[in-house]
């Protein structure tokens, strides 16, 4: 119903540019009086001050709330809450819902032009995608700097650079910032930018929700970063209670930060899932959907279904801090297991939120550079959906030694190991695609092959961890730490780099420099492995995570790992240098389709017009029909997809 209702409007908007006298909303008013990043920052600051004052006004004399830290948790929480509200008001995110609340007709905003649209509440999915690129890179850079600090402290087992409080603060911030970044690092930039282009849609289903997801994501960055000014939080990214209840005001930044980021994740996931299900071009049956879109659909489902649990868990924690409930305090009738279960019930699907988009990127890239159809397309799609489904049934493997009901352990061992079957599908697809191919070793392909190399180590060690007897030795040690860096960084971040090198020519119109790219790839690949492989051994030899003191005998391995980590950090500087050099200093215009891809996203004009497609394409065949003489083009841009026909075709494709 929505499809047929939407389509004519869209087509009309596309063919005839929006014109005529329209009231211009605040968001797009020209000049300094409009709403943009600057007003958002000002209102966020004012909201912060107001919240602080308000909290002190209503709860300043309440002894129990002030607690041992002497900080008023109510004021701390209200300050952050009103900061986020001020940020959203300032950027203009609330204009439309508030207008609707008062029964006023919503103003249709004229699309902003030029650079300024990147600093505004812009509804174009391509702008949101670019905003996310900058936002996630900022997250990545902050978290990376903190990682350098951790490795510096671990250079020596007994001589300390930071005091233990600062060290825990750094470790916790590194973990939390990186996890938050990793939830959105592909779905945000590449998912938002590319999904409509790849499914032949002119827009996202809910552009306002999409823009909201980015601006609340960036508010989350401010909230989690604010913990540093409150003395941090001592719990690591897992935030276990009752240490959480014991912690100072920085903990509120953590809890509220996850709640805020969680809202962004739910919004992003919901919008993208609905878009993929409902906005595919006519003829794009489920067996013709590009693999990247499959992976984003699986991820978006996880974002939508798993994140509400994290959101409520965070709110419970805030209640414990602010109004002194005892939901997580054993001695007062709560349960520390409640947090552990809620957190990991989100936390394990979260792990696959951080893996699936990477699989999608490589599955999309490998056929282009092997010049072959993707091997076993349906197995790949089944693998992604299978991983997504199973990921909801494994969370207690994080709690094997915690004192959970002991006979649940074989069950969770089984479900966890079962998840390697659909993950194995991804390898079947990748390896099968290499068979008798004609591989072009461009930078995106190198990063994709690196994912298969790294994730193999990460995945196999995951089987070791899921085995309860072995888990007794490796749980909570550097072995785990190395395992998830191999999957998240060795998998997702390598895939993200592959995606950036592959799609930035489309997104910005400029090619990344290949020579610098090669330097970046090889330093990142080599030093990544040199940093994290020794950590498996360090963990097996008995070093727990998050410690600042360790056995003297382990100093050699730790130093090796630290020095490699510094080189790994330098490889990221190479990447940033390449980004600046290729985009700003010496930009080289990209050809329309630099990789000879058959993908729909490369068939639109360059730069992509506002409404993406002059005509809605009709998908006529499977994707990835490389090296097949006489194969029809993937999409028909001709007169085939006229208005009346297209809605019907979409309807039938949805049923299939």
């Amino acid at each position, binding site marked *: 119903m929505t499809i047929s209702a939407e389509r004519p409007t869209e087509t009309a908007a596309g063919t005839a540019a929006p014109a005529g006298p329209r009231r211009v909303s605040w968001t797009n008013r020209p000049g300094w009086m409009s709403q943009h990043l600057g007003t958002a920052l000002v209102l966020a600051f004012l909201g912060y001050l107001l919240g602080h004052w308000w909290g002190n006004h209503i709860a300043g004399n309440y002894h129990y709330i002030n607690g041992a830290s002497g900080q008023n948790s109510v004021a701390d929480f209200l300050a952050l809450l009103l900061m986020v509200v001020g940020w959203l008001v300032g950027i203009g995110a609330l204009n439309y819902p508030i207008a609707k609340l008062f029964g006023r007709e919503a103003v249709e905003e004229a699309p902003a032009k030029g650079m300024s649209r990147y600093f505004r509440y812009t509804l174009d999915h391509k702008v949101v995608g670019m905003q996310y690129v900058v936002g996630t890179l900022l997250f990545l850079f902050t978290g990376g700097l903190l990682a350098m600090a951790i490795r510096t402290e671990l250079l020596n087992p007994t001589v300390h650079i930071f005091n233990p409080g600062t060290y*825990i603060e750094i470790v916790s911030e590194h973990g939390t910032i990186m996890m938050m970044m990793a939830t959105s690092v592909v779905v945000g930039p590449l998912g938002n930018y590319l999904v409509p282009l790849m499914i032949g849609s002119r827009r996202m289903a809910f552009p306002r929700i999409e823009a909201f997801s980015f601006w609340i994501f960036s508010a989350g960055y401010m909230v989690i970063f604010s913990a540093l000014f409150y003395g941090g939080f001592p719990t690591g990214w897992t935030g276990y209670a009752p240490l959480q209840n014991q912690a100072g005001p920085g903990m509120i930044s953590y809890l509220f930060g996850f709640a805020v980021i969680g809202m962004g994740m739910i919004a992003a996931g919901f919008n993208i899932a609905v878009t993929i299900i409902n906005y595919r071009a006519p003829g794009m049956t489920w067996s013709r959907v590009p693999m990247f879109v499959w992976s984003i659909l699986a991820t978006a489902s996880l974002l939508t279904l798993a994140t509400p649990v994290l959101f409520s868990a965070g709110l419970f924690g805030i209640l414990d801090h602010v109004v002194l409930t005892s939901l997580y305090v054993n001695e007062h009738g709560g349960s*520390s297991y409640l947090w552990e279960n809620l957190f990991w019930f989100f936390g394990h699907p979260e792990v696959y939120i951080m893996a699936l988009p990477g699989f999608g990127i490589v599955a999309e890239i490998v056929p282009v550079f092997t010049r072959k159809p993707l091997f076993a397309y349906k197995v790949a799609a089944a693998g992604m959906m299978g991983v997504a489904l199973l990921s909801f049934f494994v969370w207690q493997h994080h709690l094997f030694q915690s004192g959970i009901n002991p006979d649940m352990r074989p069950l969770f061992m089984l479900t966890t190991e079962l998840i390697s079957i659909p993950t194995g599908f991804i390898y079947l697809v990748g390896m099968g695609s290499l068979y008798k191919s004609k*591989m072009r070793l461009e930078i995106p392909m190198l990063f994709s092959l690196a994912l298969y190399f790294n994730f*193999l180590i990460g995945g196999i060690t995951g089987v070791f961890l899921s085995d*309860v007897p072995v888990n007794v030795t490796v749980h909570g040690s550097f072995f785990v730490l190395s395992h998830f860096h191999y999957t998240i960084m060795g998998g997702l971040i390598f895939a993200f780099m592959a995606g950036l090198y592959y799609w930035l020519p489309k997104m910005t119109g400029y090619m990344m420099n290949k020579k610098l790219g090669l330097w970046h790839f090889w330093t990142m690949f080599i030093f990544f492995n040199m940093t994290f492989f020794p950590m498996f051994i360090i963990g097996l030899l*008995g070093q727990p995570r998050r410690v600042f003191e360790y056995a003297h005998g382990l100093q050699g391995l730790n130093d090796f790992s630290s020095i490699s980590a510094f080189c790994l950090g330098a490889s990221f500087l190479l990447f940033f240098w390449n980004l600046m050099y290729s985009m700003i200093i010496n930009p080289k215009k990209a050809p329309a389709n630099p990789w000879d891809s058959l993908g729909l996203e490369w068939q639109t004009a360059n730069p992509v017009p506002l409404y993406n497609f002059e005509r809605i394409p009709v998908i006529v065949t499977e994707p990835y029909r490389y090296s097949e003489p006489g194969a029809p083009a993937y999409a028909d841009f001709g007169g085939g997809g006229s208005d009346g026909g297209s809605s019907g075709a979409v309807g039938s494709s949805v049923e299939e």
Partner: protein
Amino acid sequence: MNNEPRHMRRIVTAWVIASVIGDLLWWFLVGPHIPPGNMTESAHWNQFDFNVLAVTAIPVVFMVWLWMGYALVNWRDKPGVPDPVGGEAAKAPYRVQAAWISITSIVVIAAAIYGTVALIGDHGSGGGEGPNPVWAPEGAVAANTAAIQGKATWSPAGHQPLVVQVIAQQWKFTYRYPAFGGMETSRLILPVGTDVVFDVTSLDVIHDFWAYQLSVKADANPGVNNVAFADTHQTGQFMVRCDELCGIWHGAMYNSGRILSKTAFMAWATKTEAQNASNTKYLPPFAWTYTPDANGASGGLYPDGNVTPYSPYDTYGAKQPAS
């Protein structure tokens, strides 16, 4: 056409040779040195378990690596490499997909079954089993029940399990021996050739009792008794670390313990019991959990010896500081 069987034969041959060599090297050279060693029964079997998984994993890793390496060398975009055949000719053969799915499923399910057998057969493998363990060594549950009733005993002569309570707090471990008058020590000393029952609890936040060489790991939750077992095999020193982030000094929460011969342990225990008697008499009776009152772990009041961990305020009302 002629090429196809040769490619596969080459890869498979290389893979079989590499896997056999890799597995043999692992099993005989690396495996015996894999932690946690042989100090307890569960340590021994957990090491064995790790090595079983390793020799299963090595062929899988080699398969992917060799395949990728071979592809990189032979199937690059260079002169002499034929164009790949696209379309129908490149459709993935059904039998390859079916074989891959079946083989991975069999391997994975076999690993899960093997892990379950190892877990149950070795009485929980040294992991924390919560307050109601289901896989316990013979007599261990009875010994634990006796301890809570104040009837714990241990002598070097019989095969009695030894009950030790591990009390974690920020940032140290205390060990309590109900069989020796409830004495508390800061160092974990154990007899060899004995089933040990660890009752792990915490006074403040979640810690994790990790006796590395004993292959014992159990979270210490406040107000919860988490039971783990170890069957000591060798005498010697072992390391105890906290393995769950518990605040700023988590990194410094470690010490070492020792397994002694039964007679040496008995001598140490009776001597320490006598030495500590003047302090031990002020300790509360043995309970599975300690719950400090609102004053916190330091300087707080302990509950009485009831099985219920809670001490009602009216019991200690008189001792509460005036507010």
